[in-house]
C-alpha cells in the first residue's frame, strides 16, 4: 500500500528521523495512558512500538481504514494486552484523537485494556485471550484471496503466545492455503508472564516456523531499516511470512527495559517524570 512517507525512502536519514519522532510520540502516549489509567502491560506495549510505527507509517493506507474499505490492509493485535500501543499508534495516523486516548481504561471508554473490535477507530478484532488473533487473520487473508483483493493482513503475536496450540494449527492452515498475503510478526522480547520465553521454549522459534514451511526472517525489531527490509520482502514461494522481531520489553525507558515486573507495574510520580525525561522529544 502507498504510504505518505514512501517518497522519503531514499532519504534514509530523514525517514529514520521521521520514524524516531513518531515512535517517541507513541511511547509518550503509552506511558501517559498507562499511568493515568493505572493499568498494566506497559513493557509489552513498548516492545512493539517500533513495529507498529513502521507498519502504520510506511505500509498501511489509513484512508482505506477510515472509509472501512474491504481493500484495506488489516492489522490484528493478537497479543491484545499491548492495546495501549495500538491506540497510541492509531492516534498518530488520525484514527483516534488525543482526547480519545485520555479515556483509556476509564469507566465507559471504548479503549479497554484489551482491544474491542471497532471499525470506526481502526481496531480490527477483539483480542485479549492469547492465540485468537492469528486464526482470525488466517480467515481474513483467505477471504481476501477468494475475493481477489490485493490487501495484506498483518498479525502481531507475542513470543509467549506462541506456546498456544492455535498458533501452530493456524500455521498449518495458512501454509496449506498458500497465504502469501499474510505476515506474522512475532514480538520476541523473551519475557512473558513469569519467565524468560527461551527457558520455556528451548530452541526458540526460528526453526519451528521454518520447519512448518513459512518464509521466516529474524530481525532486530527496533531497527527501522530491518523492519522495512523484512516487511518489503515479497512473500515468495506462495507462503506466509513470519518476521521474528527481537525486541526488548519496556524499550525506550532504561530503568524498566527487559525487566519482568513491567509486565504489571505502573509508574509512581518520580518514575513517570524520569521516563518522560528519557522520552523527551
Amino acid at each position: 500500500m502507498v504510504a505518505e512517507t514512501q517518497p522519503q525512502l531514499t532519504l534514509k536519514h530523514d525517514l529514520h528521523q521521521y520514524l524516531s519522532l513518531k515512535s517517541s510520540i507513541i511511547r509518550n502516549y503509552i506511558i501517559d495512558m498507562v499511568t493515568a489509567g493505572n493499568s498494566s502491560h506497559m513493557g509489552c506495549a513498548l516492545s512493539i512500538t517500533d513495529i507498529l510505527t513502521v507498519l502504520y507509517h510506511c505500509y498501511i493506507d489509513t484512508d482505506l481504514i477510515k472509509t472501512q474499505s474491504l481493500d484495506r490492509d488489516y492489522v490484528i493485535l493478537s497479543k491484545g494486552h499491548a492495546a495501549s500501543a495500538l491506540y497510541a499508534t492509531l492516534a498518530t495516523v488520525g484514527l483516534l484523537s488525543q482526547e480519545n486516548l485520555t479515556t483509556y481504561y476509564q469507566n465507559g471508554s471504548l479503549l479497554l485494556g484489551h482491544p474491542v473490535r471497532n471499525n470506526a477507530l481502526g481496531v480490527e478484532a477483539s483480542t485479549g485471550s492469547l492465540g485468537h488473533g492469528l486464526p482470525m487473520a488466517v480467515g481474513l487473508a483467505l477471504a481476501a484471496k477468494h475475493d481477489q483483493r490485493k490487501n495484506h493482513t498483518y498479525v502481531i503475536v507475542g513470543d509467549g503466545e506462541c506456546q498456544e496450540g492455535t498458533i501452530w494449527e493456524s500455521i498449518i492452515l495458512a501454509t496449506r492455503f498458500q497465504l502469501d498475503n499474510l505476515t506474522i510478526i512475532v514480538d520476541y522480547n523473551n519475557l512473558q508472564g513469569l519467565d524468560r520465553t527461551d527457558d520455556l521454549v528451548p530452541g526458540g522459534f526460528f526453526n519451528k516456523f521454518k520447519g512448518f514451511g513459512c518464509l521466516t526472517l529474524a530481525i532486530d525489531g527496533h531497527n527501522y531499516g530491518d523492519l522495512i527490509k523484512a516487511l518489503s520482502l515479497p512473500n515468495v514461494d506462495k507462503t506466509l511470512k513470519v518476521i521474528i522481531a527481537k525486541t526488548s520489553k519496556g524499550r525506550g525507558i532504561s530503568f524498566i527495559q527487559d525487566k519482568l515486573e513491567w509486565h504489571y507495574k505502573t509508574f509512581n510520580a518520580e518514575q513517570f517524570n524520569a521516563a518522560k525525561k528519557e522520552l523527551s522529544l
Partner: protein
Amino acid sequence: MRTAFMQTLIKMAEQDPNLYLIVGDVGFSVIEEFQQKFHQRYINAGVAEQSMIGLAAGLAIAGKNVFVYSIVPFVTMRCFEQIRNDLCYQYLPVKIVGNGGGLDYGSLGATHHAIEDIAIMRSLPHMTVLAPGSSQETRALTQELSHYKGPAYLRLSRSENNIPYRLNAPITIGTSIIIIPHDTCLLVTTGNTLDLGYDICKSLKEESIALGLVSVPTIKPLNLSWLSNNVATLFTLEEHNTHGGFGEAIGAYLAQSFDKKIFFKSFAIEDKYCHEAGKSEFLRNKVSLNRTSIIHQIKNYLSLEKK
C-alpha cells in the same frame, strides 16, 4: 436431520455467494454434494477445532456468512472460548452446527455424546440456541439461519425422526409447534426427544389420558407463546443434562412468574455419563430418560395412576 440440514444449506448456498461451509474433518457421506458444487466455499479445516472457529470469525469479519459443522462436543466444547470471544463478543454471523445431540452417538461413548451443550451455549450472551425436533424443523431453521446476522448454534440429531404433523404457520426462530393441542396439560420437548414425547402422548391416549405435545426448537431466546394462562400442568423433556438445560430455562421462567400457578416437572438426564456401550435407546434408559418410567411419573403427577 443432517441430510435435511445439508440439502437446505446447498439451496441457500446457490442463492448466497458468500455462504461458506467449514467442517472439522467430519461429515462423510453428507458434505460431498456441497463440496462438489461450491468447491471454494467448502473448507475442511482439519482436526483443529479452535482454529476452525477463529478462521470462521476472520471470514465473517471479511463479510462471509459461515456455517461450521462437526460433532457436537468438538464444535462446542473443544473451542468454547473461541465461540465466546471470536463469535459472541464480536457478534459475527457464524453458525455452529453440531451433529449428534444428546446420546445419538451411542456406543461410541460419552466423549461423543452431547449432554452439556445446551447449557454452555445458552450461557453465552448473543448466542441463539436451536434444537430442531424433526426434519421439517431442521429445514426451516437452517433457512432462517442462512440470513441470520448473529452467532447461532444448531443442534442436530442423527435420526431423521419425521413425526407426522402439519404446520399451520412457517417455522422461524422462536416458533413453537403445537403437535397435540391441550388446554391444561402439556408435554414440551426440545430437539431429538420429540419422538419420545410423541410416543409417550400416544401411549397415554390409549389409556384415555389426554396430554398436549409441543415441540420447542428455539431454546434461546425462549418464546413462551405456547404457554397459555390455562396451562396447569407442564412437563419438559430433553436429551440433555438436567443442569442448565431446557427444563431449567423453563423452570427459571416459571419461578419468576408470580401470576402462574403451574405444576412443573422436567425430564432430563440426571447428572451422569454413560460408561457402557449401547444404542441411544438403551442409554436413555440408563440415564433416567426411560419411557415407561416417564409415563409412570406423568400418571402419578396427574393423580390418575390408580383411577
